[in-house]
């Protein structure tokens, strides 16, 4: 197919279909609703995609887990409050080892917050939102074409890692229209890995700690640790094959900007003055890459749509201070980036002048 104009949220749906998704459940919420609506329209003419507009996000999240166990590649899409409601189910999918995909089109929270304004405040929630320990894999594209591409990667990675994989987006990216050529994006599709329900076994898919034979293991720390380490090892090993990032702009500059998702696009005019590190795989954090690249720079600046969520992660990984440019209240614009850089004394003179002109 030739080039076409496509919206970020619609690109997610097309990526899911390309990856072999056959089940979607969701509940309307801005700014993710276009994924749900596009899924319903697609399902009407392609009955192989089963579609459920569920009663809420809790039902959606649990339904995609049931669908995946039954043999379908499945996904949901939500935002802010809906994503919060899904946290218990995400932990459950981790515990069961169920491949499925959660799309979180971020808006400004907490609570109902600013429903149509872009934010990046779910970075830590995608890692730690459910209770207990588990190993999250999260991707965050920056362009409409990447929404398509990384949705396919998310499905593939979910299959290989046997875990719920999160695809992050935001109100800006989800609603962005760009010209894309999907045919130019060629990501091989990983087939189904989990043997579907009723294949002749008597397995117990239990959120409760159990031994392999189904007996409760609710007081056996050794068994818990054995199962936990096994799941963690698989997920880390698979995540290694999906260590996507971008390192570029002016690599000889003395300051490294770290930005991801739509923020990286907004910050594009900084290119002549800064080096750029853009994590696409947000979790597990790209620790080796950061530790290799960051020491080349005098200063690090994290520009993000939250009050330092990713910055705190970078500090922890590198044991060094980073400068922060938080873009809050939906003010995700070059203007806000300039203001933030000025506040910390890092705004290049050329960019300051551009503001005046």
């Amino acid at each position: 197919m030739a080039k076409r104009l496509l919206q970020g949220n619609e690109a997610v749906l097309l990526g899911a279909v390309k990856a072999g998704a056959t089940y979607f459940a969701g509940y309307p919420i801005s700014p993710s609703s276009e994924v749900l609506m596009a899924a319903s329209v697609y399902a009407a003419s392609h009955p192989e995609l089963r579609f459920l507009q569920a009663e809420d996000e809790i039902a959606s999240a649990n339904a995609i887990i049931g669908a995946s166990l039954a043999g379908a590649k499945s996904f949901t899409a939500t935002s802010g409050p809906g994503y919060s409601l899904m946290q218990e189910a995400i932990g459950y999918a981790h515990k069961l080892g169920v491949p499925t995909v959660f799309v979180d089109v971020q808006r400004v929270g907490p609570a109902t917050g600013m429903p149509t304004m872009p934010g990046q405040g779910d970075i830590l929630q995608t890692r730690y939102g459910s209770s207990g320990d588990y190993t999250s894999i999260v991707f965050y594209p920056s362009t409409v074409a990447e929404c398509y591409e990384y949705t396919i990667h998310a499905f593939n990675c979910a299959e290989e890692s046997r875990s719920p994989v999160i695809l992050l987006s935001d109100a800006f990216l989800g609603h962005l229209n760009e010209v894309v050529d999907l045919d130019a994006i060629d990501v091989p599709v990983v087939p189904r890995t989990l043997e579907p329900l009723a294949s002749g076994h008597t397995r117990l898919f239990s959120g409760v700690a159990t031994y392999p034979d189904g007996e409760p293991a609710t007081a056996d720390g050794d068994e818990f640790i054995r199962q936990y380490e096994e799941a963690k090892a698989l997920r880390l090993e698979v995540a290694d094959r999906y260590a996507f990032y971008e390192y570029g702009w002016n690599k000889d500059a003395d300051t490294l900007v770290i930005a991801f998702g739509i923020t990286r696009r907004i910050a594009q005019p900084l290119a002549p003055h800064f080096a750029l590190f853009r994590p696409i795989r947000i979790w597990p954090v790209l620790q080796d890459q950061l530790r290799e690249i960051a020491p080349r720079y005098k200063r690090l600046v994290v520009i993000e749509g939250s009050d330092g969520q990713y910055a705190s992660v970078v500090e922890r990984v590198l044991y060094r201070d980073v400068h922060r440019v938080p873009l809050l209240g939906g003010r995700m614009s070059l203007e806000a980036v300039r203001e933030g850089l000025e506040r910390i004394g890092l705004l290049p003179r050329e960019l300051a002048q551009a503001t005046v002109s």
Partner: protein
Amino acid sequence: MSYKDKIKTDLFPTIWCPGCGIGLIMTQLATVMDDLGLDKSNTVMVTGIGCTGRMGAYMQFDSVYTLHGRTLPVAEAIATVRPELNVIVVSGDGDLTSIGGNHLLHAIRRNPRIKVLCNNNEIYGLTGGQTGPTTPVGTKTVSSPAGATFSPVNLQGLVNTNPNAFYAKTTVYHQGQMRRAIKEAIEWPGFAFVDITSQCIENNGRRIGFPSANEMLNYYKKEYRQAPPGSTQLANHQLGIVKGKPAETEPVPVGAASGNGSGEA
């Protein structure tokens, strides 16, 4: 074949307290499954957190032990993806009607082909006997020392908001009638709900004055009566099966939305 082939007897003894009613449900369910030829290649069990939900671990099927309250969305999705399967939900009254109440409301409305056996012990058994939405008014529990305050949820009324649905009331004392209700539910072409009164002897019965499970079963024998044949509405403590008109078409996934949503929330 025997009902025992449907049960992992090697895992016995179960974790259930001696005298608990759940085992009586498992035996009748296994018997019906055996009669109807349900096996691990055509049937999936879905259970929720609670004493009742442990049943999935003891049966010879693939079984999904869901989060507390979430059996129905999981079961409905399985039935959507694999319409050829028998999808049997077994869960507690708290799980299905309290934390899972919203899913129950909407599963009834959508009428998926799933069968729900509700172990209605009128209490939160697993967590130690707190009052729940099925606890009769006045019952003293560890969380209602002066007696439960609110009227129990009307399960029959809820299920029958869908004219296509199936509702049966039975007890663990009335084994033959329970078996019939489970069998007809499994054969029903849509959503079926079997409301099974049973005893939680440890965390409820003894506290409300029953010395043992035996007295509770005798109480069910004395208190419950078969409804007159053809009843379309069961009175309190009446046993029977109320069937709607079977839906003419299989439930289908929601089709395309027309128009463009323009609001925001």
